[in-house]
């Protein structure tokens, strides 16, 4: 009998360590139940189109024309496509190296990167260099590329917020690095306290870890908080003092649901702080077409912008990008369209604004509906979703429930979420998938279900939760007697 080529035992250990709860146990169970015919509401991942959000019309028109350029030669194309979509398609086709089917420059189409730089300049008021902007197959790939550059071994630590989006923990595991957690303060609306940062770094260094980088997710995922300008200044100062590269995950920058803290990019604050800090602190900023009001997750389009990285390092990052040849071209066009939107006077402008505003205003309403809905439930406390796409309520599980979870061999929030799923079809992600303080439990859901479905979903949740709490609290009372 031949030897077994690849057994579980002989797998790369780092792969085994990886966890990614967003598509883990709960999602797999939900998929099973769906196959059995149960109606499932997937709120496990920020995937707007899967929950009924419609794609914006204009970008789809443009990309369809780019896919099938023979349409542009057809005299009847104007019957189906407006003139500005046709013009835009020609514009983007002219920027490619031979249409959508040719590998582009490994960093992305130069013309699109220029549009991204112009967007950044308009947004922040400081010039941006297209040569330092790389387009990627989704922001996640960009994060992986940069972390791969930084992490040499387990001696290298990356500061990551807790709770965090588990791309970071998973990638750090895969690359064999060390995650250095800094805790966000739930009672202070998931605020970031620099003292927490200092303690985390000190502890890591005591263990012999070289802390190399700090991740901020702004607006936060799963927590939704928007960082204030003062906060960003503190963070940048901290990175300057501690010699850390700042990784700014800003994929939700268009998802802001309150007016007290509008989005400010890390780059803008860095530049505002002037030299020497503005010239020395290293920063990589990430963005995507998957979120905002575009929600084009399936395209896999993103970029990262590098600030203050030495040219030789940029060359090395370029080299690694070139092994993957190029990011997918259709998504690059989506990115161009996103950063270079329609203007008043364009034929499609009004429809575009109507569609965009519609989505954003509804998200804002849904953020409120969900927060209030959770806060009306027994033993549930929920911070307001200031931004991003999620709600992260804290579920205060009675001791009897935790006991039952233990009996079932499950972490308490996994136990709760499985029961929630089985009772209501609502598929969430347990807080343990994101990290939380020990003994405190949460779940993450999205604010993405259609607005008209929200009341029913929230009341379904409340019914389940309150019955669950009654069941496990009553038992406890009984045992007391």
């Amino acid at each position, binding site marked *: 009998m031949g*030897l077994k*080529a*690849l057994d*579980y035992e002989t*797998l790369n*250990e780092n*792969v*085994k360590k*990886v966890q*990614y709860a*967003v*598509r*883990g146990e709960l999602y797999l169970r939900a998929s099973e139940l769906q196959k059995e015919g149960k109606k499932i509401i997937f709120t496990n991942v920020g*995937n707007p*189109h*899967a929950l009924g959000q419609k794609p914006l*019309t204009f970008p*789809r028109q443009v990309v*369809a024309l780019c896919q*099938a350029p023979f*349409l542009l030669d*057809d005299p009847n194309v104007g019957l189906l496509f407006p003139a500005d979509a046709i013009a835009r398609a020609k514009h983007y086709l002219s920027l*490619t190296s*031979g249409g*959508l089917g*040719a*590998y582009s420059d490994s960093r992305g189409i130069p013309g699109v990167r220029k549009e991204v730089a112009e967007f950044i300049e308009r947004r922040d008021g400081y010039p941006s260099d297209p040569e330092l902007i790389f387009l990627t197959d989704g922001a996640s790939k960009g994060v992986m590329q940069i972390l*791969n550059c930084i992490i*040499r*071994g387990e*001696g290298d630590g990356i500061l990551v917020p807790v709770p965090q989006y588990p*791309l970071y923990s998973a990638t750090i595991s*895969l690359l064999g690095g*060390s995650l250095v*957690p800094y805790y966000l*303060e739930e009672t202070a609306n998931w605020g970031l306290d620099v003292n927490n940062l*200092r*303690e985390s770094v000190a502890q890591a260094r005591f*263990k*012999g870890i*070289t802390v190399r980088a700090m991740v901020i997710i702004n607006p936060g995922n799963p927590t939704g908080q928007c960082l204030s300008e003062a906060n960003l200044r503190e963070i940048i100062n901290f990175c300057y003092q501690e*010699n850390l590269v700042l990784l700014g995950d800003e994929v939700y920058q268009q998802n802001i649901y309150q007016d007290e803290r509008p989005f400010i990019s890390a780059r803008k604050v860095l530049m505002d702080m002037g030299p020497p800090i503005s010239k020395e602190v*290293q920063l990589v900023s990430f963005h995507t077409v998957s979120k905002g009001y575009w*929600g084009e997750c*399936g*395209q*896999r389009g993103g970029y990262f912008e590098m600030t*203050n990285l*030495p040219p*030789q*390092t940029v060359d*090395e990052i370029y080299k*690694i990008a070139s*092994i993957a*040849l*190029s990011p997918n071209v259709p998504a690059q066009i989506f990115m161009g369209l996103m950063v270079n939107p329609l203007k008043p006077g364009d034929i499609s402008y009004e429809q575009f604004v109507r569609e965009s505003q519609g989505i954003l205003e509804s998200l804002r309403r849904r953020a409120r509906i969900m927060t209030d809905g959770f806060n009306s439930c027994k033993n549930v406390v929920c911070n307001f979703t200031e931004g991003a796409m999620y709600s992260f309520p*804290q579920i*205060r599980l009675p001791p009897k429930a935790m006991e039952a979870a233990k009996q079932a061999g499950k972490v308490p929030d996994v136990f709760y979420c499985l029961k929630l799923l089985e009772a209501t079809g609502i598929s969430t992600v347990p807080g343990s998938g994101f990290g939380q*303080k*020990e003994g405190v439990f949460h779940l993450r859901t999205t604010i993405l279900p259609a607005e008209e479905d929200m009341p029913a979903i929230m009341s379904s949740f409340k019914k389940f939760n309150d019955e669950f709490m009654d069941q496990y609290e009553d038992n406890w009372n009984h045992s007391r007697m």
Partner: protein
Amino acid sequence: MRRFVIGSARSLIERSRQNYQFQRPLLSSSYRLLSSTPAVDSPSSSSSTMAPPVALNTINPKVIECEYAVRGEIVTLAQKLQEEINTKPDAHPFEEILYCNIGNPQSLGQHPITFFREVLALCDHPTILDKSETQGLFSADSIERAWKILDQIPGRATGAYSHSQGIKGLRDTIAAGIEARDGFPADPNDIFLTDGASPAVHMMMQLLIRSEKDGILCPIPQYPLYSASIALHGGTLVPYYLDEATGWGLEVSQLKKQLETSRSMGITVRALVVINPGNPTGQVLAEENQKAIVEFCKQEGLVLLADEVYQENVYVPEKKFHSFKKVSRSMGYGEKDLSLVSFQSVSKGYYGECGKRGGYMEVTGFGADVREQIYKVASVNLCSNISGQILASLVMSPPKVGDESYESYSAERDGILSSLARRAKTLEDAFNKLEGVTCNKAEGAMYLFPRIDLPEKAIKAAEAEKKAPDAYYCQRLLTATGIVVVPGSGFGQVPGTWHFRCTILPQEEKIPAIVTRLTDFHKSFMDEFRG
């Protein structure tokens, strides 16, 4: 709202400290390019006394180590020359740069397959499917196929993340296509759709490589994705040499020899990479050869990584593509006998859709626990791009006889393939006429890999410029003619031999001019350096 009382920060840090068992880092000799920072940083040191966190001497040394010549130095020079021509058209003795370095057909004028683009456009903008005008602009079967595909996508939402292996209905189509091709069944659950074949290769290297003690057998010459990926993942490339004298033949005896040598050096060889048809070498394996390879992997407990992205590019009537899946099944080997990963892509063939980043791997012969891990790694990236997934399903299930688009589709396909075959022959003949150059036939794929006997004088000139001799030749060729090819050292070659890789992709009408320019350059180069 009830107030939540938290523990003090100190106790939280205590708890988090208990979760991590750390040792002090290993001695600095294990990090080849360690920064100048000491192992334990003092918190208040200013940045001016330390190397910045992301500088050349502080980044991951594996990043520094890995190389990818296809888009390397020669291309950078080509781009520079291109810019010079753009500003000053007579800056150089040629009007345009001819990129023969990369398998990127549509950048050199190859047209996409109309039917595929019709379906993709409709899936990108499904709103128009309901409009009557669409009937006049699109073929009826492309409309039908678009509907079929959209019905396989939950909510018809082409902008949503899909299942991490790819949309189920599309995997069903691909599995059916594999079965139609091979005559043996394929399971849609074995298919992982990826952003091109390259990410799938990376995924497998990630799973297989635990340390530099893990080796992967790779052909020399090879497509440098493999060497780069192995370097990035910290493994060891175990070379096996293809035999140029026998048309780049793959001898199992050579595999055995290399396997034994590496084992004796303490390397655990985990997998065998076979590229069929070959890149850069273009050979198509004979079925008997493939059987011997399958047998070898089975006996030695190696995972067979079958890069089959050029499966539709076969130019000689005496050879046919046989997938390794088919070959192993025809030998009676199933899931329990052989671990096989087969890679396919939308970038090559006659469709050449490089920019779409579509591809898949078919994974057979692994236990459920391993497959779970593969799924898990795939899920961290959520999914591959949907348009690429759709295209992969179209490539594996193109129009059939009787379909409205079949005739135009097959005319386009055959036109491209026959043109590729002609260009392969024309360039092969041209290379073989050059002094000191021999070129094996390109039986398949998209490249020619001629060998040049460089005169001693040329080799010395190269050394004087601190360049590999083949890189020197390629640079001289570029600056004289504008033709960009990749030096053989980028792919690996028997030491002391020199090659370059040239694609067969420039449009047919440009080929005569390329041949002339190349021939003239080569003559004058040899005149300059002949001994």
